[in-house]
Structures are given as C-alpha cells and as structure tokens.
C-alpha cells in the first residue's frame, strides 16, 4: 500500500527562452530515498527549487500529504519541514556549529539566548550523527563533509519531514561519503522522505529505492532501482547509448620521444613533495589520488599559481622559470581549475570576453581592443568545442557546467597553449557533456597537444589516460602504463599501500 508523501502534479516551469519543466507528474512515497536523475539542464534542480519554494511553478502544483503545498519562499518551506541540504554549503563560516544550527531559531529564556539548552541539544544531535566535532567548533575549521553534517543536524533539529540533497557527494572523500550514506539511511529509517540528486549512478544503486528520470524538462519514467540494469537507466537519461563513454575512440597518438613537459623534484608549501613526471606530445596523462593527495596543488605549482619551494620545470628540454600564471601562459601552458565557477571564468563576462581573456594581445588593433574580432573568434571557437548555445554575447555563468568547461578550454585554445592541465574537467557535468569533453580531449592530443587530466573518478582516469600518475599524501606513489591499469592496483597506490603489501591500506586513515 503506497503511502504518497509528495505529489508533483502537472508541473510546468517556463523561464524566458527556456521551458525548464514540462507537465512533470509523479509521486514520492513516504520514507523512501527517491533519486532524481537526468542530464544537467534536465530540470532536476528546478524541480527541487519549486518544492522548496525558491521558484513558483508556472502551472501545476506540489501536494504534500495530499494538500497543496506551493510555498511562497524558502522560509515557509523550512517551517513546513521541507529542507534542502545545499550543493554550495550555506553556513556562516565564522560562527560555531551550535550558532549555525540554531541560527534563526535560537532557544531563548527571558529574552536571552539559552546557551546551555542549545549546547545540550547540539551535543545530542551531533552524537546521533556520529560527528567527531563539538558544538563550539567554528564552521570554517570543518571540512566539506562535516559541514554537510551540520546542515543535516540542523534539518533534524527543525523536524524535517522531507530532506533533499543536490549532488551531496561531489566534494567528499570516500569515507565521508560512507558516513553520509549511513546518515541518509538513518533519516530514512525515521520515516523522513529523501530526494536525492546525483550524477553518480553507483550512489543511486547504493542508497535509493526508486529513481525518477527527467529529460529536457519532461518526465520520462520512475524505476524501482533494485535490479534495474545500469545501461537502461543511462539510456533513459540521455536518450542515446553512451555506455561506451570515457573511452578512447581513436588510435593512441603519444610520441614517446617528445617530452613536452618535465617536472623534476618539485615541492611546494601547499602540500606536494618531490614530484617528478614527464608529459609527452599527444599524451593524456591521468593524475589520480584521493582528496588531499596534492594533485590540484601540484598543478597549481607547475602553473605558477603557487610558488614551488624547490625543483625544476623543463619545457621541450629547456629549463624554464615559472613564477606566475602569466609566465606559464607565456610558455603556452593552460590550466582549467577544479573550481570552475570560482576560478575558471569571470561571472560578469560573456563568452566572448571569457574566451578572449587570456589572449587580449591577439585582439589588439592599434591601441584598441577589437570586440568584433573577439566575437568572431568566440563563435569559431564555440564551433570547435561544440558550445551550446554558441552565442558570444551569452553569459558564461548562465551556461550548463559542461558548456562552461568548454568555454574555459576555448580560452586556452585561444592562447595556443600546447600543454593543458585539466583539473577535474568533468566534475558536476552530465554524462552527455562528459563524452563531449572526452572527445575534445582526444581531438586535442591528436593535434599534438599534451594533456594532464586530474580526476578522482577511476573509470574516467582508466578510460582516458595513456599513463596514470597516482598520488598519495603529497607524493607520487606510482606511475602506471596502460598495461598496468587496474582499479584495485591504482586504489592501493592511492591509499598509500605498495602493491605487494596490501596490509598497508589499513594503516591509512
């Protein structure tokens, strides 16, 4: 006997120029973990935002327990126990865990805050979630996973009956993901209904009961997850078969004689030591490691964004001094940073200006910048990287994640960079756009560029790389050739164990 908790009835949402949701109807049962699946732009987040009162639906209604529950704002939704654990964590960093949990609902006695009561309550909440930090810890000292726990504690404290998660694991370590899953299952056991957005299918299979697939704003189907073939799920999401994504489709093209970049014994204060590796022409060099292994820091060090404390960098056999990103750019190195939105592009600029940003000298006519040349160039680049919409006047910030990444890559192609360092190039990007980024990478190495791809996703690393550098705790623990690619082996190196001594794994963390 299904017990319907939330019903989406005929929901339409029209934004100017975009029909984001088209007559979406489905029901979510009480106490289930319900996944929302679909490519970026399929309408998942829009639907959640309607549930949480952030947007009003253009047509249709949300029913909770059979009653219309179209909230006017987030505050009303929270009051009704409908709470969102945010993708971009929204806590006040300078305040303590306790203050954050009780922000807006402080317990007061005679008009003064009752610290003791709040302390006891927070203590209880944290203990029940198995948190290892105290109520007086400042949030800024917590890591992402712990901050999420604070948000969940707050949701429990507010007696949530519906909690939604939007990509909760995108910046968590494996261990933190594990903790999060246990907490989610606990919430479920308490009868709380969970809505869960993720691009990682494995997670869906781990914790979700049912999954609803959206495509281009339309409802496709709701599946019970258990026993559902993965291929079928993917197929329904993208409407085409991408079972073969994260694979190389063209012949390998590494020129092993041509070392483009050689990093020798590089160390930096940001957390990497004695890093030595080569990048060859036509090579995709994968950099794998767990969160905190020092991969991003290494890239930033080589790029000059952080200072190297020792070590050397050789380009095409000649030692060069790279002291700033400007030096790196001049040496035709490009970096697509991990935090695309905060470091990859400039929000207030449109595609034209973001693509041109690193190469304004090229668009100089006398003392002036030629905007028309930039626009023309941006349109050409857009074609090359398959940007949609390919409109130079479109603001990069308004594009989907995959297209934003294409703009960042287009920026570096404009500089004629021949070494590209792509840090988590497909993070938070849907399956369809991922395969486009992969195809673009393959095209670029065929043009004779060298690519370093930092990634924490094994299938991607294994599928795309010519060699894999595995990092652990700031050092390179292995450099593997293609015939040595093996998930277990790579993971063993990543957690710091040697291949012959698997017991070392247990000592880690």
């Amino acid at each position, binding site marked *: 006997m299904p017990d319907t908790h939330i019903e989406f009835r005929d929901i339409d949402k029209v934004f100017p120029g975009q029909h984001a949701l088209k007559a979406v109807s489905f029901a979510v049962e009480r106490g289930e973990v319900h996944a929302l699946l679909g490519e970026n732009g399929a309408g998942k987040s829009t639907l959640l935002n309607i549930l949480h009162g952030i947007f009003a639906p253009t047509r249709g209604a949300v029913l909770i327990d059979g009653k219309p529950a179209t909230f006017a704002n987030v505050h009303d939704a929270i009051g009704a126990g409908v709470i969102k654990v945010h993708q971009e964590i929204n806590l006040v960093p300078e305040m303590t865990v306790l203050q954050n949990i009780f922000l807006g609902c402080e317990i007061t006695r005679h008009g003064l805050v009752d610290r003791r009561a709040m302390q006891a309550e927070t203590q209880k909440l944290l203990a029940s979630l198995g948190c290892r930090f105290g109520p007086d810890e400042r949030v800024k000292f917590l890591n992402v996973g712990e901050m999420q726990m604070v948000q969940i504690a707050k949701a429990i404290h507010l007696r949530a009956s519906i909690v939604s998660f939007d990509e909760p694991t995108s910046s968590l370590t494996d261990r933190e993901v594990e903790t999060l899953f246990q907490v989610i299952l606990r919430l479920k056991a308490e009868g709380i209904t969970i809505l869960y957005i993720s691009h990682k299918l494995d997670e869906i299979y781990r914790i979700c009961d049912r999954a609803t697939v959206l495509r281009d704003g339309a409802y496709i189907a709701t599946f019970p997850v258990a026993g559902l073939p993965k291929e079928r799920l993917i197929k329904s999401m993208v409407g085409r078969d991408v079972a073969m994504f994260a694979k190389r489709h063209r012949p390998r093209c590494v020129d092993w004689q041509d070392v483009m970049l050689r990093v020798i014994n590089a160390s930096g204060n940001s957390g990497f030591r004695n890093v030595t590796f080569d990048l060859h022409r036509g090579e995709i060099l994968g950099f794998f490691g767990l969160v905190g292994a020092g991969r991003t820091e290494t890239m930033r060090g080589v790029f000059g964004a952080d200072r190297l404390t020792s070590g050397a960098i050789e380009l095409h056999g000649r030692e060069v001094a790279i002291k700033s990103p400007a030096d790196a750019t001049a040496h035709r190195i490009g970096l697509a*940073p991990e935090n695309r939105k*905060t*470091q990859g592009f400039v929000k207030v*600029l449109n595609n034209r*200006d973001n693509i041109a940003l690193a190469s304004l*000298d090229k668009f100089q006519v006398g003392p002036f*910048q030629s905007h028309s040349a930039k626009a023309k160039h941006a349109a050409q680049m857009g074609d090359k990287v398959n940007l949609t919409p390919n409109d130079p*006047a479109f*603001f990069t910030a308004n594009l989907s994640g995959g297209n934003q990444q294409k703009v960042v890559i287009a920026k570096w192609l404009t*500089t004629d960079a021949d070494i590209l360092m792509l840090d988590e190039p497909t993070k938070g990007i849907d399956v369809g756009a991922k395969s486009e980024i992969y195809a673009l990478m393959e095209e670029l190495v065929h043009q004779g560029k060298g690519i370093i791809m930092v990634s924490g996703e094994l299938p991607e690393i294994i599928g795309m790389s010519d060699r894999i550098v595995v990092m652990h705790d700031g050092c390179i623990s292995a450099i593997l050739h293609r015939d040595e690619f093996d998930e277990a082996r790579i993971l063993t190196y990543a957690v710091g164990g040697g291949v012959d001594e698997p017991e070392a794994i247990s000592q880690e963390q």
Partner: protein
Amino acid sequence: MRSGVAWMSLKQFLKNNSREVGLLVALVVMTALFGAINPLYVSPANITDIVNQATIYGLMALGMTFIVISGGIDLSVGSVLALIGVIVANMAVAGIHPLLCIAAGIAIGFGVGAMNGFMVAKMNLQPFVATLGAMSFIRGFAYVISGGYPVIGIPASYRTMVDGMLFNGIRTSILIFLIVAVVCHILLKHTKFGNYTYAIGGNEEATRLSGVKVDRYKILVYAVGVSCTAVAALVQLGKLGTGEASAGQGYELNAIAAVAIGGASMAGGRGGIVGTVLGALLFAGLKVGLIVVGVDTFWQYVATGLVIVIAAYSEKIQSKLSETSGRVRAWGEPSPGASKAAGD
C-alpha cells in the same frame, strides 16, 4: 520590415543600457520637477552652473569608476585634491609655465594612485583601510607643504587655461570634463586595460589564473583613477585661485556617490563612464535644485542621502528585472548581472 529591425535593435539597446536610460529619465524628470516649481532652474545660466558644479567631483568620479569596477575603493582622493592643489599653486605662483604645472599635477596624481595601488596589490591591504591611511597622510603632507596657509596669487595665465570662458558661459573646465570622460570611456571599453579592469573586479583569481598580471593592472587602475582627481585638482585651482590644504574634504564620498548612482557595483565588475557622468549630473542637479526651490540647508543633506539610497535600490530592482527578462540563467547561481556585458 526595416522599422521592425530598428525597433528590435532599439529594444536591445534599451535592455543593454537600462541603467543609463533610467538615469537619463530620472534626470529629465528631476529637471522638469524643479523647473515647474521654479522656472529659473531651467534657465541656461542655471544649467551651466549645474554642469560647472558637476565638473570637480564628476572628474573625481570618472577615476573612481575604474577603481570601483576593479573591486576597489579609494578614500584618499579628497586629500589628493588638496595636496596637488597646494603643490601646483606654489609652482604657479613661482612663475612656472602653466603647462608644466599641469603635467606635474597629473604626474603627482599618477604617483599617489600607483602608491595606493601598490598597497592594495602588493601589500595585500584592503582598499578601504589602505586608502583610509593614505587619506590621512596625504592630507598631512598638504598641510606640511602649505604650512596651513592658503596659497594665493595664482597667475591669470594658469586660471584661464583651465577655467577660461569659451562662449556663452561655457567654460574650459566643462570641455576638460567632457574630454576626460570620453577618454575614460574609451579606456574602459576599448582597451586591454579596461577589459582587465572588469575582469579583475569580476573575479580576480580567475583572471590571475588566465595569465593576467593582475597586480600590475591593479596598480595601474589606481594610478589612472587618481590621475582623474589630479585633473579635478588642477581645474579647482583655476576656479578658486587658491590652493588650500583643507580643500576637498568629503569629496571622495561625493565621487563614490556619483559612481554608485551611475550603477557601478561596489563589489566590482560592473559600471560604466556614461552612468557615472549621468550620476554626477544628477547629483549636482539635485543639490542646486534643492537650493533653487528653497529647501532648508539641513534638509538638503537628508534629501541627498535619500537619493543615493533610492538610486542604489533601483539598481537592485533593475538587475532583478533583467534577470527574469534577460538571457537564461543557470539556477541556483548568483546573478551575473544579466543585462550588462562588460566591454560592450
């Protein structure tokens, strides 16, 4: 169908320049309002007077526009006005050629600005604090140099050069303001320097990671910005005929107000010269208007303050409106300020 095309491009123009158009409308409405109460307000003499008044902090606001768009602020410009006034007055009195005086004044402005920029870019001080310090020690230097006495006896050759009468009451100073405004507009919209100014204000880290020498451009932004104040100081000296160490107190706030009314974002990344010029005119027109219609001096402050807040609020509403009518945004992300394309 030609008219249809023209209509579309007009609509696009209005949308892309909604802030400027809004300011223009506000300016016209305000002028009409004051004019209706007191017809003297719209007399050519009075309007010339308004523009005249707008030149000094208008010039300062032009420079401030660069600094604000880059994500900074400069509180020292009022003091810079005094310092340059005192130094150049001494030079002019000593009989140095006016052109040389002008060159020296602008060089000092550029230097002081570069110093402020250095504190912000290289010493990593917050612009507010760094220039708060500069505000005090620059004023101090002005007093030290002048000994606290006004420098009088500026030769007429200098005064006519920067504030002579051209025709019909139009002064050289107005022409200077216009020329500087045009130069600033071109600098901001059509040069590499201008492009970087927007990019740095929009996202400094992303700009640095794009290989831009951000520090160098930030220093340049302050140098150019304060150079505009130098021009204001030179004009002011011509207008008043005395250089005083106490000049320009609080002018930095007028300049910032004009920039804010003009639609620049204090968070950086957005703004423009046309908006700032209109903002300065609106500000001056309001001040003169309140006097002309006989509002009590004390209430003038209240009214001026209210206008700044209302202008800032209308900017908020405007960007909200353009969010819903502009190009599609990715949801859950902060507004990129949908209707203004930097560099357009």
